C-alpha cells in the first residue's frame, strides 16, 4: 500500500509538471495572395498527383472520384465537389479540412488554402 501511495504521489507530480509546462502558442499559416491567379494545371494538379491519385486511391476505377490528370477536372464538376457560390462549403475543401473526415491530415494547410483560393477564383480549368 505504501508503494502504491508513493507511486501515486510521483504520478501526480508528473501530471502537475506537465500541467505547468503547457504553452499557449498560436499557429498562423502563410496565406495565398488572392490577387495571384491560381492555375489548375500548375498549382492544383501537383497536389492531386502527390497526395490523391496514388496507387489504390483516386485513380481510374478506384475511390469515389478519379483525380488523375486526364479526368480530375471533369470529375470534380460532375460529382459536385465544387461549390462556386460558397467555396468554403465545397466538398473538395471540406473533406480536407474538417476534423473527423476521412481525409484529415492528408494535406497541408497551405495546400488547403491554395485549393480554396482556386475555387474562389472560379475553379477554372487553366
Amino acid at each position, binding site marked *: 500500500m505504501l508503494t*502504491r501511495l508513493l507511486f501515486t504521489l510521483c504520478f501526480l507530480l508528473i501530471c502537475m509538471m506537465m500541467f505547468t509546462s*503547457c504553452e499557449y502558442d498560436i499557429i498562423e499559416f502563410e496565406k495565398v495572395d488572392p490577387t495571384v491567379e491560381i492555375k489548375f494545371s500548375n498549382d492544383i494538379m501537383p497536389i492531386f498527383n502527390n497526395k490523391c491519385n496514388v496507387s489504390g486511391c483516386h485513380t481510374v476505377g478506384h475511390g469515389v472520384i478519379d483525380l488523375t490528370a486526364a479526368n480530375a477536372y471533369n470529375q470534380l464538376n460532375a460529382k459536385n465537389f465544387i461549390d462556386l457560390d460558397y467555396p468554403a462549403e465545397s466538398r473538395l475543401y471540406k473533406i480536407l479540412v474538417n476534423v473527423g473526415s476521412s481525409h484529415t491530415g492528408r494535406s497541408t494547410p497551405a495546400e488547403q488554402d491554395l485549393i480554396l483560393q482556386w475555387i474562389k477564383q472560379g475553379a477554372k480549368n487553366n
Partner: protein
Amino acid sequence: MKRFILFIAVFVIFYYFSNAQEEVKTEETTVTDVKDKPVKSPFETSVLIDFPTTVIPSKGSFQLLIHHRFGTINNGISDIYGIYAPSNIKMTFDYSLFDFLQVGFSSEKNNKIQEIHGKLNVLTQTRSGSIPVSVSLYSMAGIGARSEDFYGKTYKFINRLSLFEQLIISRKFSERLSLLTGASWSHYNAVSYDKGEKHDHVGIHVGGRCKIWSENSFIFEYTYPFKIVPSEELNPPKPGFSAGLEFGTSTHGFQVFASNYQELNPVQNISRTQSDFFKGDILLGFNITIRF
C-alpha cells in the same frame, strides 16, 4: 463399558471441537482472502472503446492493442459503409510495471501522433466491498510527427505537444454490469485561431459493459466536451458516442463498434470532433487486444 462410553464421548467432543476450529480457521482465511482480493475483470481490457478503463493487467504483462477505425458509413454501399474508405489505425504497446501501474507507447496514422502514456490504479475495488470503487489516473503526452508545414510560420518543436489527463472511477456492480465515469483535461500547445480551435477542453466521460452471454458483452461510451474558458468558439467540439460488442478470451479482447470518433487520439477526439453520432456521422471500428 463406562470407560468405553467415556472414550467415545471424549472422542466425539474432541472431534467436534477440532472440526469446529478448522471451520473457524477456514472462515477466517476466506474472509481475509476475499477482503484483500480485487474484483475479477471489471472490464475485459484496459480500453473500453476509445478511452481507458481502470483495468491494468497483472505485473509483468505485455499488451498489444490495435485500434482500427473505418471511414464514415454515409457513402453507403459504394465503399461498403466505410469499410473500403480511408481508415485510421493506432498501435499501442503497454507493459505493467506493477499490478497497479502500466506504461505504454502508441503510434497513430492520420495525424502521426506518437504517444507515451501511463495509468495508475490509486484504488482497486475489492470483492468484500471494503473498497467500493476502482480509481485510476491516466496521463498521456503526444508528439505530432507531421511535417513543419502543419505548425505554421512560427514553428517551434514544443508546438507539436498535446497532453491528456484523466481521472477514472469505475464499479463492478455485478458479474454482468460494470460502469465507469470520469473527467479529463485535454491540451494543445499550439492551435489555429483562424480555424476556431481552443487550447484546453474538459471532458466528462460515462461508459459501461453489460455481459450478454459468457464473455460477450455490450459496451458503450459517451464523452461530453466543455471549454475551460467560456468564450465564443467557431466550431465547438461535438460529444462522442460509441457502442458495440466485446468478445473476450483469457489472452485476447476483441471489440467491434460504431462511433462518431474518426481520430484515435483522445485530445483530438475531445477538442476537434465535428461529427454527430445522432445525425448519422457514424464510423465502424474495432479494437484487438493481445496479452502476452
